[in-house]
């Protein structure tokens, strides 16, 4: 073979493979690959619904290597993060995790993610999309803060489902049952360190495992060996999307458009619009977007992301929301919808004009039956609580563990 043929002209364009790829590729029976942040990423491995039921009834793993991870450290790290996000970072104890959103100067959501406090002056921020440019901007003017993108250095695996605690115990993580939600614990692992946080994106009992990338496969093998009797199974994006919707969690490009990427005026969202007002801590004298958010709070929020229980069983995907059954007054739109097997309900998240939330709400649902298009109007009921929030998700120790 000539040298020219050996050189891949698209080398820089090829998708990266996560440290878990050799095992995941073997299990991806359907070759259902897409991509996330430049990584080859599974939409599903075998069947999305099967994988979803693994999350709800057993356990499954979800590759979060493509998730962005930034190590933010130094004497000013806490102050820098506290100014960047809407929550009070100073309250975050060492070895604890907190869910946060951060906004631009106008109070529009740039992204959401989690902050891990790893030490006195050391934090890890994780989020779904690359955010390094914004974090560097947020660090401008602080003398003692270092921002490192460690996304490719860490092998991270989300491990979710009711049997996860039992599997981790079987894997040898002693005392894991005492780890509280949003807690972090470290375990020795084959000469290295395995960090476990009790976090996840499924609204159920679950953990996330963090280890240096070279030990990723060994960790996978140990976990899958321990999980074998529990029928441990990898799951992909589709199952994740089902589980998170039942839990009422928001997704970028579904519930919100990242503020730094929108072109049209106010086609992005504020935390209040996303029903995340509880993350906005006005007790803090300052944080980015505070002034704009305070104005919004006083003025009232135009839209509110709302959980809907919709009559019937036809998912209201991309539906318009109306004030009246005749669909003359449009008041919102559905962002995500599905039939929820766990809740046995036809559920949706929808952006609805706040002033109409108290009145009747109707959805126009388009659906297809064997290539024929149908439409129907369905009554919607606002649900205040998540559709899936089992007590085991918060219990310490978790049941059966």
């Amino acid at each position, binding site marked *: 073979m000539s040298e020219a043929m050996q050189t891949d002209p698209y080398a820089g364009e090829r998708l990266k493979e996560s440290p878990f790829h050799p095992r995941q590729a073997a299990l991806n029976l359907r070759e259902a690959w897409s991509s996330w942040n430049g990584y080859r990423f599974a939409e599903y491995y075998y069947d999305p619904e099967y994988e979803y039921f693994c999350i709800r009834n057993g356990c499954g793993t979800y590759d979060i290597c493509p998730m962005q991870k930034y190590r933010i450290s130094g004497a000013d790290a806490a102050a820098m993060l506290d100014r960047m996000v809407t929550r009070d970072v100073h309250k975050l104890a060492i070895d604890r995790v907190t869910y946060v959103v951060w906004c631009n100067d106008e109070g529009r959501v740039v992204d959401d993610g989690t902050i891990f406090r790893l030490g006195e002056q050391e934090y890890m921020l994780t989020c779904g999309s690359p955010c390094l440019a914004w974090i560097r901007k947020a660090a401008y*003017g602080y003398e003692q803060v270092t921002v490192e993108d460690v996304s490719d250095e860490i092998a991270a695996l989300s491990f979710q489902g009711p049997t996860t605690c039992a599997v981790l115990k079987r894997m040898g993580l002693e005392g894991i049952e005492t780890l509280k939600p949003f807690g972090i614990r470290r375990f020795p692992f084959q000469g290295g360190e395995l960090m476990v946080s009790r976090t996840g994106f499924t609204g159920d009992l679950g953990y996330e495992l963090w280890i240096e990338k070279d030990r990723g496969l060994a960790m996978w093998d140990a976990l899958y060996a321990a999980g074998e009797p529990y029928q441990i199974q990898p799951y992909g994006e589709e199952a994740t999307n089902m589980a998170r919707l039942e839990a009422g969690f928001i997704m970028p490009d579904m519930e919100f458009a990242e503020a730094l990427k929108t072109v049209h005026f106010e086609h992005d969202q504020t935390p209040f619009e996303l029903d995340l007002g509880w993350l906005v801590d006005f007790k803090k004298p*300052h944080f*980015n977007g505070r002034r704009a958010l*305070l104005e919004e709070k006083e003025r009232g929020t135009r839209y509110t992301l709302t959980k809907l229980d919709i009559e019937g069983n036809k998912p209201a995907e991309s539906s318009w929301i109306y004030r009246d059954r005749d669909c003359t007054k449009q008041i919102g739109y559905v962002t995500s919808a599905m039939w929820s097997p766990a809740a046995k309900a036809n559920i949706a998240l929808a952006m609805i004009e706040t002033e109409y939330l108290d009145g009747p709400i109707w959805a126009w649902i388009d659906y297809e039956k064997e290539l024929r298009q149908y439409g129907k109007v369905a009554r919607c009921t606002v649900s205040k609580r998540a559709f899936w929030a089992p007590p085991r998700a918060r219990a310490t120790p978790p049941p059966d563990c």
Partner: protein
Amino acid sequence: MRDFDTIVIGAGHNGLVCATQLARAGQRVLVLEAHGEAGGLARAREFHKGFKAPVAPSSHHFSPTVARALGLEQHGLKLAPPAPFTALAGDGTAPRVVRGETLAGASVEDAAAWPEFRARLQRFADALEPSWHKTMPRIAKGPVKSLLPLGQVGLRLRRLGKEDMREFLRVFSLPMRDLVDEHFEDEALKALLAWDGLIGSRMAPRSPNNAVLMMLYRMASQSHCAGTSLIHALGSAASAAGVTLETNAPVAKILVAADSKGQQAAGVRLASGEEISAEQVISSADPQTTFVKLLGVQHLEVGFSNRIGRLRCNGLVAKLNIALDGEPNFDGLESAQGRLLFAPSLDAIEFAFDASKYGEYSEQPVLEACVPTLETPELAPAGQHVLSAHVMFAPHALRAGWDEAAKADLAARALAVMERSAPGLREQMLGHELLSPVDLEQHYGVTGGHWHHTEFALDQALMMRPTYEAAQYESPVAGLWLCGAGCHPAGDLTGMAGYNAAQEVLA
């Protein structure tokens, strides 16, 4: 803890103007100056035993409105008619001299073109003049009447008539070279006429931007006074108004009262550790120093902080002060009155600028000089003189770094340029000092050692100066205001930023 209504940071001329205005309105005002004397860049500083000079030796367009408002005449300020501005080409030709409306030493053709050229630009300058005194409107927010200043400018330009209005719109963003090339032949004269659009900025004759606007800014209310006498009058007016001035009192931090209701500037902490409280803090320091060093970005929005952070603040002017054993003699001049330009052509300016783009200074620097001791003899021992020069296109970020050798080298080059028109200059020299932009930054606390605190260019002018959300002198933190050259209109000894800021604080 000592308490005042207002603390003004910095006793430069804008700080003093602002403080005096507020004190005259009944406020208890404290001015804190880092150095031993007030005056900022107009403060005379000893550079050779017995010889002193300020960085800004004179003002050419101090605002008569400010002078009137503060009654500066009663405090000894005399705004004299414009001083002559003389081009010394260094080639044995007669000096070209502009003084107000008159032009001497020009060719017949150039002399014929002069009156109309000058009169038209003066009409433009007069039409723009009031806008330098007005707070610029907020972008997208604020009452409709805040747009009035812009509307008034438009109206005044419209009143000039169709022909002038069209001409203004055509030329206001022209490179200086295109403008003067249209009217004049003589290279040395063209350099002279272009100079006031360029000096202090990162701009050369071929740069399109706001060089013409800068020149019009400088043509409004032209006058002359010595920098030191201006500071003297301002100090006297401040003291008469009851302003408390403390020197050797560098501010370390602007204090912010912060609770769940938000943030409010509450005073300052001095480098000595003393904390002084005030209802409001007004900073005449440059925007980067004010917001990043003194306030701290933790009190500001991310986007706003980054706009402050990317302000272009790198100075391009070095200060060369020379102690002379006697009055210097320049070819063809009876006396070295006024300002002297050592730039034989537009190309000479352009080439000198070119070097600075790549982190170097030119082998043939261009410079503007004056002999301040002719009107302020006390700056030197009797019979001796000071020559004070602005050496242009000496970049703050000199690639090789500003060490003693670099400064000695640039001083020698500048001296060589001047010697072409003043052959005996070197023999009269008793000593000298060259202050690079880095030195200016260190001695005067100005970021980048920049004349205007931050570049005066279209993107950093009017309601964009220093940046939106701070362009009305009010900062995003309640009770913290700006009043320095980094605000509208810009730098130079005009007093307008300080005056406008005081008007806003009192509004």
